[in-house]
């Protein structure tokens, strides 16, 4: 089996917010053709560049999120380009796009191909009072409640420095496409899938936005801490060479890890009598005062400062401690777990060398998800893709001369 989406043809018109959606569909076996303007996708011009050379084939953002796709250049603002696009739509299963609502005409596309699924990823959705608003990672996250709750209490709300709203929205879009393909199996008809990045950023609150009207908790920033019960508990702790994530919270799933952590500290002579005397099997963070939490935290914190991220994570894996290092790509590439699973792939980029990238986003039996190739060079597959709709070499030469491809 190549993939679960074998034979599904996707035209990918997305800008950065939708790059991941096409990548995921391609890695499940779909034939994803990135449709770029003849000058190339704007992401190809964004620094940094691999090797420091400003080159549309070396833009890291482009290379990272467009793996496994093919590239076709087509001037959609040119009447011939538009006509060729509609010819491609006639035999496509899916069009992915991120243009402002109303740019693509769903009715016209649907008339051309009744089986087509159009998936639109926009900041706020296709209709509604804010549908015409501009939006991007920062601003859609601002309106989700998620930004409000992220960051330090004495600073403004803060976002992740990489655009997580685009990742959430893209995975949502890929799922929406497959739901629509499944529906088509029954109805024979495609449909328009409307993904709002803003609404996609509600789920990362893990239900707490819905709960706000039940509990009155409007959310608050607590920095490296987490607020629960009557106190705040540290969540991210400094260690010898970085930071680790560890929760001093109870419950059946966590208590064995707390017991094991105290034993580990004791082996290093760093568990006080008070810590050892505690009945950890009855530990309930909800019942502790802030003073009690702070006293416990001081002991755990002092211990973590004597150990590196690697030492603490090795112990966590051996002893089932619920502790994790605050990883950077350096630690990920050194991970024995990821190496054992063959996660990273080393992709040959013709003329540029090999680049290591994250691999399949899941493993299946039988195997069906894989990074199938590097991000395409600009227009690399123009002749092949247009050849599939009957554009021969002579016609292609004319299109090139007219600036259509």
């Amino acid at each position, binding site marked *: 089996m190549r993939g*679960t989406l074998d034979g599904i043809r996707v035209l990918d018109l997305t800008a950065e917010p939708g790059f991941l959606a096409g990548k995921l569909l391609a890695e499940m076996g779909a034939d994803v053709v990135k449709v770029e303007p003849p000058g190339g996708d704007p992401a190809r011009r964004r620094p940094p560049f691999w090797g420091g050379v400003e080159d549309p084939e070396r833009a*890291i953002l482009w*290379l*990272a999120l467009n793996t496994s796709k093919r590239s076709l250049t087509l001037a959609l603002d040119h009447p011939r380009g538009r006509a060729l696009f509609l010819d491609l739509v006639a035999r496509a299963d899916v069009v992915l796009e991120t243009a402002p609502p109303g740019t693509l005409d769903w009715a016209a596309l649907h008339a051309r191909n009744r089986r087509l699924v159009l998936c639109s990823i926009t900041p706020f959705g*296709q*209709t*509604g*009072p804010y549908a015409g608003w501009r939006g991007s990672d*920062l*601003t859609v996250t*601002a309106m989700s*409640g998620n*930004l409000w709750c*992220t960051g330090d209490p004495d*600073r*403004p*709300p803060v976002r*992740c*420095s990489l655009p997580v709203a685009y990742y*959430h*929205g893209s*995975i*949502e879009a890929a*799922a929406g496409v497959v739901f629509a393909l*499944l529906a088509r*199996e*029954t109805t024979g*008809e495609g449909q328009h*899938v409307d993904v*709002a990045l803003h*609404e*996609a950023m*509600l789920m*990362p609150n*893990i*239900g707490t*936005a819905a709960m706000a009207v039940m*509990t*009155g908790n409007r959310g608050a920033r607590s920095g490296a801490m*987490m607020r629960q019960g009557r106190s705040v508990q540290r969540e*991210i702790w400094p260690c010898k060479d970085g*930071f*680790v994530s560890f*929760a001093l919270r109870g419950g*059946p*799933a966590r208590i064995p890890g707390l017991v094991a952590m105290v034993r580990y500290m004791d082996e290093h002579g760093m568990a006080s009598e008070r810590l050892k005397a505690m009945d950890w099997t009855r530990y*309930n963070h909800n019942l502790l005062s802030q003073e009690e939490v702070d006293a416990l935290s001081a002991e755990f914190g002092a211990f973590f400062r004597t150990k590196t991220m690697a030492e603490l994570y090795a112990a966590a894996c051996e002893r089932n401690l619920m*502790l*994790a290092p*605050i*990883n950077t790509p350096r630690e*990920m590439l050194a991970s024995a*777990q990821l190496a054992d*699973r063959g*996660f990273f792939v080393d992709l040959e980029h013709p003329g540029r060398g090999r680049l290591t*990238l*994250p691999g399949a986003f*899941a*493993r299946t039996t039988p195997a069906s*998800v894989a990074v199938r190739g590097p991000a395409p060079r600009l227009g690399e597959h123009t002749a092949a893709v247009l050849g599939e709709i009957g554009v021969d070499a002579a016609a292609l030469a004319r299109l090139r001369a007219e600036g259509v491809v």
Partner: protein
Amino acid sequence: MSGLFAGTTILELGGGAAGPLATRYFADLGATVIRVESRQRPDFLRTLKMTPGTRGGLDGSEHFAVLNAGKLSLALNLSHPEGVAVARRLALRVDAVAENFAPGAMAKWGLDYASLVRQRPDLVMISTCLNGQTGPHRFYPGFGGQGSALAGFNHVTGWPDREPVGPYGTITDSLAPRFAALLLAAALFHRRRTGQGQHIDLAQVEAGIVCLSEFVATYTATGEILGRVGNRSRHAAPHGVFRCADEDGRERWVAIAVHDDADWARLVSVLGSPAWATDPTLATAAGRLARVAEVEAGLEAWTRPRRALEVARLLQDAHVDAAPVWDLRDTHDDPQLRHRRHFREVLHPVLGRHPAETNALRFSAMAPEIRAAAPCLGADTDRVLRELLGMPDAEIARLRDTGVLA
């Protein structure tokens, strides 16, 4: 079509957020999702905030309720061999199995894919945990906070001069369900077309790292480890969150993202073209990035006395990307979320009327619906055993008496 998954049944084992949020996509599109639960070892969300005074006990958790709307609950004691036998019969009978236990748990009960597929060759099953079903760290027992750390999200969230923070809500817990829904839907699509089943091993850390491909590729291509930059952009300015006038005694903020020089020119005219902003050296992104703190201070002086929504409206009217920063409660009054009916009211037996949330997908020819509140533990035990397994009432009573349905 009314419900894409009407007639489809998914058996769910496990708990927390990462597993249960995945099957919500299917429940909202008409699937019957049966949670296998037990009083012996309840879902940790049922107990997370529990104290001896919690009304409704295990059924009184708001958190469990909002994440599990529209599902059924079957109480089954998996420490009892007859409980395992019932789970096995159900797993072989349903359309898909979704589980998010630590690796090894399902195998211990003989409910793992390898055991089940012998009797159900076209089985579709997803297993999701932090590190995956194989490898030396597969038994590592973390929650979403640890997944977020391992996948790299914490390192890039926060301020450059402060310690890292998490993106609020332990992000792998919300990325993983989306990946799981995608993979499960594709497996069902594939089975429909070919008759073949599939086992999916979704390692939440790996899927998270795939999202952060730009972070990884920057390191492997250049050796640079991207750090925390607060709300700033490496490519454009101003790009940040600015203080506005307090409202109802609470701090208010507005997010403003200038993406290019044309955006800046329109922003400056909304500001009334003050002298500091019309400085020609600020007309280019490079010029603004070189003096970013000064630009931010100038902008905040303008936003500070104004209401956040008013600032956002003024800027959006000029086609500048800006938005008020809502707190969790504010999202209920957001007109766009209302238009999309993001929150839907359900009636819960213990908690009463409360909002539940649907996903970010709307379709031209089908509509997600939340059909019921989350179940009380074991609320649907008899119905599931009767309807799915055709179990006689006397047998159900016997299992209950022997502690199997607890």
